Every structure is written in structure tokens, then in C-alpha cells.
């Protein structure tokens, strides 16, 4: 126990003397600088500064409180009236700006969407109209074509009928002429062969041949 008590006694009784409790080589009292380095917490400081540990020394409490009040008061004043409103203003302006820009971007996007929708609709309408026009044109053309074809067909069939009529007339005439020629020929042949024949007999003969 004495080992721990002795240095304390040494401190209180002999300020400035080297301490025995610290594990460095003992230093002679005539080297004051080194002696000071080893009296870490103790008496050297006390001897010079009136004994108190500076942070607990009430000598300057009043001064510190006053100057803290002045400096901190000024700091609080300048921050609350000037700097913080300014800083807060910068942040708020930026926030507002970002918000406004976002809103503007949103609005532009909506506009673009509307434009795209309008375009799509116009396109669809145009397509529909084009379809209608095409159908109408096709119908007109078809009708026109049909009417013209019908007219031509009618014309053609009329001509065919006429031609057929002419053909049958020519045919009938030709056939009638064939009868007359056959009768004449028969008459001539019979006259040549037997010298005498009547035209009526020849005609009857030809008619019977034709029938048979």
C-alpha cells in the first residue's frame, strides 16, 4: 500500500521534486525541464496557475459565460435572421423549380399524348374515308362497265338476230332457187331423154324426191 501512497505524499509535500511513482528513470532536481515533463497531472501546473485544474477553475467562468453569450447570441441572430433563411430559400427555390419543371414536363407529355391520339384518329378517319371513296369508285366503275357491256351485248345480239334473219332469208331464197334449178334441170333431162315433158310433172317429181 505504501507504494501507492508515497508518491501522493511526495506530491503534496515537495512540489517540484521528481515523482517516484512513475516508471521512468529518476531525474535529478537540477534538470527542471525534464522534471516538468514527468509531472503530468500534478503540481507543476498547479504551482504555476494557482492550483486549479483549468476547466474547473471558476476564475474565468464569468468571462467565459459572457463571451459565450455574446458570440453564441450573435451566431444565433445572424443564422436565424440572415443565413438560414437564405439557405432555406435556395433549397426552396430549387425545390419549386424542380417541381415546376416536372409539372411542365408532365404537361408536355400530356400534350404529346393528345397530339399522338389526334393524329391516330385523323389517320383512322382518313383511312376510313379512303376506303369509302375506293368502294364508291369501284361501284361506279362496275356499274358503268356493266351498263356498257350490256349495251354492247344487246347491240351484238341484235346484230346476230338480224344476221340470222338475213341468213335464213338467203337460205330460203337459195333453197327456192335450188328447186327451180332442179325442176328446170329435170325438165331438160327428161325432154332430152324422152322429148316431151311438162313442167308440172317435173316439179312434182322434184318435190317427191325432196320428200323421200
Amino acid at each position, binding site marked *: 500500500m505504501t507504494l501507492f501512497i508515497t508518491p501522493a505524499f511526495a506530491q503534496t509535500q515537495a512540489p517540484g521534486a521528481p515523482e517516484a511513482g512513475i516508471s521512468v528513470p529518476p531525474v535529478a532536481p537540477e534538470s527542471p525541464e525534464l522534471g516538468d515533463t514527468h509531472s*503530468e497531472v500534478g503540481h507543476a501546473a498547479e504551482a504555476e496557475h494557482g492550483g486549479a485544474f483549468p476547466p474547473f477553475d471558476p476564475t474565468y467562468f464569468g*468571462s*467565459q459565460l459572457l463571451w459565450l453569450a455574446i458570440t453564441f447570441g450573435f451566431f444565433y441572430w445572424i443564422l436565424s435572421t440572415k443565413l438560414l433563411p437564405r439557405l432555406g430559400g435556395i*433549397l426552396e427555390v430549387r425545390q419549386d423549380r424542380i417541381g415546376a419543371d416536372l409539372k411542365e414536363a408532365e404537361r408536355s407529355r400530356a400534350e404529346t399524348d393528345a397530339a399522338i391520339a389526334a393524329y391516330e384518329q385523323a389517320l383512322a378517319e382518313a383511312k376510313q374515308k379512303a376506303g369509302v371513296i375506293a368502294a364508291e369508285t369501284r361501284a361506279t366503275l362496275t356499274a358503268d362497265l356493266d351498263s356498257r357491256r350490256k349495251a354492247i351485248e344487246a347491240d351484238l345480239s341484235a346484230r346476230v338476230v338480224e344476221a340470222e334473219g338475213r341468213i335464213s332469208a338467203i337460205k330460203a331464197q337459195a333453197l327456192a332457187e335450188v328447186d327451180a334449178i332442179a325442176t328446170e334441170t329435170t325438165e331438160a333431162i327428161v325432154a332430152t331423154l324422152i322429148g316431151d315433158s311438162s313442167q308440172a310433172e317435173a316439179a312434182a317429181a322434184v318435190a317427191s324426191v325432196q320428200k323421200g
Partner: protein
Amino acid sequence: MANDPIHQFQISKILDISIGGLDFSFTNSSLFMVATVAAASGFLAWATSTRSMVPGRAQTVAELSYEFVANTLRSSAGTEGMRFFPLVFSLFMFVLVANLFGMIPFFFTVTSHIIVTFALAMLVIGTVTVYGFMRHGWHFLGLFVPHGVPAAVVPLVSAIEVISFLSRPISLSVRLFANMLAGHITLKVFSGFVATLTGLGALGIFGAILPLAMTVALTALEFLVAFLQAYVFTILTCMYLNDALHPGH
């Protein structure tokens, strides 16, 4: 005195001011309070001076700090808590910049003095108490009576709640103060080892490698602690303010 790890916390007068027999001298502590405030507000003013729509680096940092504190406050105390935003932001920036200034060699660490951190903590607790009573009247005391507790244990729980409420400014201030103090002492002790050992010759220089590495590592850690303690102070402030806004748990 060069290696005395306590010396860095010593307050020295720069300008002797005495009002009514009280010592209100402008000290190195006051100087660094002024420097902290000047640096923090100067940076914020400079960074936001252009008010760019697309922020530059400095403005990004300023905006990040704003949104960081705003998010912290909003997530702990809700949108209503934003009325305390200037206070919380001032506290965060003051503590952070003071802590970081303390990391510069030969600079004084304002937050390493308990009276400073205690004053800041009392400011928070004072705001909580005053605002809590202003807004909720006597209902603010409902803070000390949690819901859903059997009537038999209410006195005990309330006593614990009161003690916990009263200890808040102490824990809030001591946490910040002790972290700064201990960190700077540790740094100074290890760097003191380096100085002492290198003075002892070749073997000492070799032996100084370890404390030097330790000092480097501790410096990095202290930067982390400087930020973390500012953040912890801020988030606890937010949670206490939440109590003032919504005392019913």
C-alpha cells in the same frame, strides 16, 4: 511546460475587462469563440452568396449541413420541431466548428471547458422547460408520468423521470466536455512521449515510433469524435425538444 497536457486548457487574458468588480476579460477562450462564430457564419455567408441553382462545392457543404440538421430535427421532433431549427443548427455548427478548431495545433478548444458546455446544455434544457410550460401549461409535467404505468409504481417512476430530467443538462454537458478534454489530453500525452523519447538519443527515436503511430491514429479518432460529439449533442437536443413539443411520451 511544453509537454504539460493540461497547459492547453489554460485560459490567459488577452484584454483585461472588469465590469462591476467581475472579471469579464477577453481571453483566449473568448478569442476562439469569436473565431468559431466568425468562421462558421463567414463560411455559410460566403458559400451561399451566389445563391446558385446548381450549387458549387462550398454551397453543397452548406446545404448538406442544413439538410443534415433539418432531417435530424424532423425525424426526432417532427415537423413542429422545425421552429427550433435555428437554435439546433446554431448549436450544431458552434459545437462542430469549436471542436474542429480544437484539432488545430496551438488552438484553444472552447468546448473543453465544462462551463461552456454546461451553458449550452442549460440553454437547451431552459428552452425545453420554458417552451414546454408555455405551450402545455401544467400538462408539461405529464412528461414525468409515463402512460400505462400501474398507479402503485407511479411515484417511483416519476421520481426516476424527474431525476433523469434533472441530470440531462449534466450528462449533455459532461459528455461533450469530457470527450474533448480526454481526447486532447491523450493526444498531448502520446505526442509528449514522442518529444521526450526523441530527446533520449538513437534508441529513444526508435522507441518513439509507437507513440507517434498512436498519435496519428488518435488524431484521426479525435476528428471523428469532434464530429460525433457535435452530432450527439444535436440529436439529444432534438430529442429533448421533442419532449417539450410532445410531453405525453
